[in-house]
């Protein structure tokens, strides 16, 4: 996947309406009218969002000239989420160690302060 397309993917995902559209399409294809229904937005506004999603390769439009149903294209989304997942995993290691440290510091505080129940020997 080219950096340009990946950039387009992240730009497309930065908008809450577009994320909601993708979430809707995850449960099956839909027309512009169907997609516009839950939003307080005009069809042209929704169409604009769809163009951004289409350019990012996140959705494709059907050939049927009347309906042109939209469907989710999973691959670019997966590349983008793989990135986020790797980034997440990178930080998660440190935060797990921080959990242990915080638990230890909490126990020290209890020892120094008023132990709540005497459960600690």
């Amino acid at each position, binding site marked *: 996947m080219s950096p340009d397309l990946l950039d387009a993917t*992240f730009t497309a995902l*930065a908008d809450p309406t577009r994320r909601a559209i993708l979430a809707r399409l995850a449960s099956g294809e839909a027309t512009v009218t169907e997609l516009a229904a839950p939003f307080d937005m005009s069809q042209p506004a929704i169409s604009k969002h769809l163009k951004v999603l289409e350019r990012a390769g996140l959705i494709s439009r059907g050939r049927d000239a009347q309906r042109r149903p939209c469907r989710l294209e999973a691959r670019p989304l997966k590349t983008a989420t793989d*990135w986020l*997942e790797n*980034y*997440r995993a990178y*930080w998660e290691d*440190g935060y797990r160690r921080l959990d242990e440290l915080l638990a230890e*510091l909490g126990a020290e505080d209890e020892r120094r302060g008023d132990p709540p129940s005497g459960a600690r020997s």
Partner: protein
Amino acid sequence: MSDGTGALTVTTPTDREIVMTRAFDAPRRTVFDAFTRPELLKRWFGARGWNLVVCEIDLRVGGTWRFVSQGPDGGDMGHGGVYRVIVPPSRLVYTESFDDQWYPGESLVTYDFAELNGVTTLTSTVLYESKEARDTALRSPMERGVAEGYDRLTALLHSC
């Protein structure tokens, strides 16, 4: 540990930001300390296999910080910056750049510590100078992992 702690989420709400959210089962005073006291930071900060060997902190607005981590192969990674906002125990803002800077410009790191019923939710926001810098930084842990893998492979091939 209570429910709701432990899950780390990463989002990119704008073109120039990476936002991470993580809950910790501790009061925010303690979590804030763990992010600002060198003797505590040395015990947890860093990715797997990396140890914080230098941790210098001048905790005042305009004061500098400098970290050096040592990797599994003995390689060093240094980074540092300047504290911009310090509001214990709720907010910490500093600039960050790396010795071996691989994305353009410095970034601005903001930590918000919110406490509810003894659980602290930490929101960390990294703001980059450009979208290109953000995407490079976002890609880098994976690239680093790949590079480490290749290093190990090279070592293995040499030993054969």
